[in-house]
């Protein structure tokens, strides 16, 4: 009954019927209380977004998988300390981190959010070392600014490493399996290669999905116990888990292509191991019976059964089927290998099983990797009837007659798979390099890297958003607008990067577009910070700062780890001249992400307004260090320097800013300002003349020119320019200033008259 219940629970989970799964699982735990069942229950809760329930049931568990699930629930409930202790118990400093790469990744996140950057970096690196295809870890490293070049992380060495790990695992088991294993690891690697780079938040979902997929594998294991006893299984599986938290899952078990694609190598593997341990004992009694049945049919037509099983599995895609068939198959193989091999040592058998698993993995891997290929391989293997199928089974034996055929088949697969890995790693490399460069704000280079992507990869929401973001950092708002627009058209439901898009529209003063964007985002997901950021930007553009603050606060509320929401909130407070709250907001933003240069900039502006020029300069400089390409930042740094009377440096920076971005008029204007304060009027006027060409309707340019001419006592020109400035309808404050300046122009004349 227990196995049946577990089956149903897992199939419900797989089919997203959470209520069913929860109910059945609770009954299961009541009937057969065990830690493994508890883990399954926790998984159900986590899938159903009830992390608190999972937290309570798993509190105090010691098994690695339990600790991992417990850590996930703590993380979701924002109890970071507890999560950390679960993964890394304080009194066991050398304990292995559960689930290898995934565990390290989670730990890294915990350290990052508790402000321990070096530890975080360390763990992300470890995660990547274990599983080179763990994109999320690389992403985090980029955000922390500590990523090494993508070509270092996603290179051939990594591919080799992945294969090696597989190799060493299998070779430790059985020498005869040698050649096959070599091909198989590549398929394994390929399998994990299918991992798509995705978000940490889905991490636990991925992991839990994998637990589902793994029963299949365990099924095969289960065939083993009758032969080798359950202890062998644990022996067989856990050592690999402990010693080789390798990057590759035996995704042999993964039937569901989607599950598969979400599989993150390392954790998948270890999970499967753990699950194998969990599941194996349960399967035992079910399969024992089958084994007896099967042994009678030991040398019958394995081929057809296997092929039917395989195709049946492919078609049916249910756990129960798999378990039965798998049980049959596994039992069959183990039995066969019993017969086939002289040494019926459990080791060999386990090796056999392993190769079976691997072999299956290969077929699954192929299946998932490429639809076309799948049919090929399957039908190849099936159509080739006994020959191939027996060759497949013969794999287990390692002494098949049709070794050649098999060998050819395998090597054909092998080369395809190996090239598949290389292709995938290449893709990750490009994307990784691009992301790393854009996090380092070397946006021009990042753009070049992204352009190297293939057409179909480039035209995806993520990449287009990243390109848009890169343009935004280069202060090229028109291009950014274009790319974000494309991104929206390609994937209208993407939210990532849309906060930046709303800022771009804010800068371009596109009220209509911005409000439309905000409305759309809210309708897509009311609980996303990006949507509220967009709304806030919309109100801010209309100068309704109070409402903007409310919207940004809502964004913060929705996700307090979203640094940009804090920063935007700070900007609004500053616009309302509430500097205290503004500073608090900027500081919260910096707590989340120290490399968020907008927050440094915001603080600089506050201090500039409060006339604390030293602080202002310090903060602008920090921002500038993080993002050395932004001409606006350079300009502000120059302004701070000017206020500190370090005018030479100020002018230098202005020059840099001007050359960095020809379209930005601000540094030229500031330069003229500085020059006029230094009484270098001619140079100042020259700059302003240039500016006049660029922006002929900007009253401040004429006003400044008028001011300079007044200082030079060239009254007619001063009047002339003041007049133009006034004609351009500046705001009332400027009108007052200009008019009073004009008045004072007359005074000397009047004095002369009265004399």
């Amino acid at each position, binding site marked *: 009954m227990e196995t049946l219940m577990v089956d149903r629970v897992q199939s419900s989970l797989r089919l997203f019927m959470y209520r069913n799964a929860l109910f059945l699982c609770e009954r299961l735990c009541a009937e057969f209380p065990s830690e493994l069942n508890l883990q399954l229950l926790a998984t159900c809760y986590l899938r159903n977004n009830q992390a608190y329930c999972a937290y309570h049931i798993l509190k105090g568990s010691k098994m690695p998988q339990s600790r991992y699930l417990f850590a996930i629930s703590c993380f979701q409930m924002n109890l970071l300390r507890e999560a950390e202790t679960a993964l890394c118990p304080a009194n066991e400093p050398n304990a292995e981190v559960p689930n290898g790469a995934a565990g390290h990744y989670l730990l890294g996140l915990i350290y990052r959010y508790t402000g321990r950057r070096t530890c975080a970096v360390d763990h992300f690196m470890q995660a990547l070392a274990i599983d080179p295809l763990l994109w999320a870890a690389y992403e985090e490293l980029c955000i922390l600014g500590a990523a090494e070049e993508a070509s270092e992380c996603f290179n051939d060495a990594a591919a080799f490493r992945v294969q090696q790990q597989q190799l060493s695992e299998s070779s430790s088991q059985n020498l005869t399996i040698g050649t096959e294993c070599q091909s198989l690891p590549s398929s394994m690697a390929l399998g994990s290669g299918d991992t798509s780079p995705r978000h940490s938040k889905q991490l636990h979902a991925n992991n839990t999905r994998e637990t589902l997929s793994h029963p299949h594998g365990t099924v095969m294991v289960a065939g083993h116990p009758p032969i080798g006893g359950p202890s062998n299984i644990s022996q067989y599986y856990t050592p690999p888990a402990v010693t080789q938290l390798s990057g590759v899952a035996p995704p042999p078990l993964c039937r569901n292509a989607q599950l598969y694609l979400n599989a993150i190598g390392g954790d998948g593997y270890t999970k499967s191991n753990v699950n194998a341990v969990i599941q194996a004992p349960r399967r035992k009694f079910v399969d024992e019976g089958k084994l007896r049945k099967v042994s009678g049919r030991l040398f019958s037509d394995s081929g057809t059964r296997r092929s039917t099983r395989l195709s049946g599995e492919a078609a049916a895609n249910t756990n129960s089927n798999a378990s039965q068939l798998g049980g049959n198959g596994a039992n069959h193989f183990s039995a066969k290998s019993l017969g086939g091999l002289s040494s019926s040592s459990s080791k060999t058998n386990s090796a056999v099983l392993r190769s079976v698993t691997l072999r299956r993995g290969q077929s699954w891997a192929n299946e998932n990797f490429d639809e076309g290929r799948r049919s090929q391989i399957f039908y190849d293997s099936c159509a080739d009837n006994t020959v191939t199928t027996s060759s497949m089974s013969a794999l287990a034996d390692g002494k098949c007659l049709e070794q050649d055929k098999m060998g050819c088949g395998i090597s054909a697969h092998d080369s395809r798979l190996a090239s598949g890995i290389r292709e995938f790693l290449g893709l990750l490399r490009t994307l990784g390099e691009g992301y790393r460069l854009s996090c380092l704000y070397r946006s021009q280079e990042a753009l070049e890297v992204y352009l190297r992507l293939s057409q179909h990869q480039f035209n995806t929401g993520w990449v287009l958003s990243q390109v848009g973001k890169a343009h935004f950092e280069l*202060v090229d*708002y028109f291009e950014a607008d274009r790319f974000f627009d494309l991104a929206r058209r390609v994937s209208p439901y993407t939210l990532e990067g849309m906060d930046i898009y709303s*800022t771009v529209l*804010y*800068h*371009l*003063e596109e009220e209509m577009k911005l409000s439309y964007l905000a409305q759309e985002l809210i309708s897509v997901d009311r609980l996303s910070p990006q949507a509220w950021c967009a709304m806030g*930007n919309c109100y801010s553009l209309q*100068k309704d700062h109070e409402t903007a603050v409310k919207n940004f606060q809502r964004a913060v509320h929705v996700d307090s780890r979203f640094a940009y929401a804090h*920063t*935007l909130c700070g*900007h609004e407070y500053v*616009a*309302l*001249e509430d500097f205290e709250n503004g500073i608090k907001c900027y500081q919260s933003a910096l707590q989340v992400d120290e490399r968020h240069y*907008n927050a440094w*900039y915001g603080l600089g*502006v506050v201090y*500039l*307004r409060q006339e604390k020029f030293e602080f202002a300069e310090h903060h602008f400089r920090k921002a500038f260090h993080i993002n050395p390409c*932004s*001409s*606006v*930042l350079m300009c*502000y740094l120059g*302004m701070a320097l000017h*206020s500190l009377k370090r005018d030479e440096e100020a002018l230098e920076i202005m020059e840099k800013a001007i050359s960095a971005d020809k*379209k*930005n*008029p*601000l540094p030229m*204007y500031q330069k003229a*300002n500085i020059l006029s304060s230094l009484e270098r009027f001619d140079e100042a006027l020259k700059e302003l003349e240039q500016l006049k060409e*660029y*922006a002929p*309707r*900007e*009253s*401040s340019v004429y*006003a*400044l020119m008028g*001011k300079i001419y007044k200082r030079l006592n060239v009254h007619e020109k001063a009047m002339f320019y003041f007049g133009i*400035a006034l004609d*351009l*309808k*500046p*705001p*009332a*404050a*400027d*009108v*007052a*200033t200009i*008019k*009073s300046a004009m*008045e004072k122009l007359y005074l000397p004349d009047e004095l002369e008259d009265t004399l």
Partner: protein
Amino acid sequence: MATESDGEEDTAGKLTGSQHLEVDDDLREMAKKAAWSVSSCKPGNGVLALRDDNLDTYWQSDGAQPHLVNIQFQKKVKLQLLVLYVDFKLDESYTPSKISIRAGDGFHNLKEIKTVEFKKPVGWVHIPLSGTDPRETFIHTFMLQLAVLSNHLNGRDTHVRQIKIYGPRPNPVPHQPFHFISKEFITYSTLR
């Protein structure tokens, strides 16, 4: 910006109210940063009613004329426009008819800057604070005092339903002498 008549004819400089609050975009409300106080009030109709954005609640004075509303800022601010909501139809003899606006550093050196007269006003009354000199669009002051010198029909106490005070927006680019108005400048003038 005297009268936007939406009802009665104004007589020679006397203000009537307008239905709508019309304020330039480059002005913003300054009142949040101020400390408001009144010379006297009836319990339940205190100074909060002046700031609650609710036109049904009003401040009712309870003492001798002139009735005073004092608005004090922590630092010198530029003020441009004062807007009052009064309603003759509802308040009749409580409606103010003559108001004096004074400014200064504190209670000791207030100086009158403007006097306005109302004639049966209904709605928002906009009172620009600039002097006759067009240069002086703003007054630069620590404190503003609104004195109700007399009411319609010689009423003793007065009702005022809402008061708003406006000043110019600060320059988004700090320490800039002039505002940017063209799109090219504004787009690049700040980071977000």
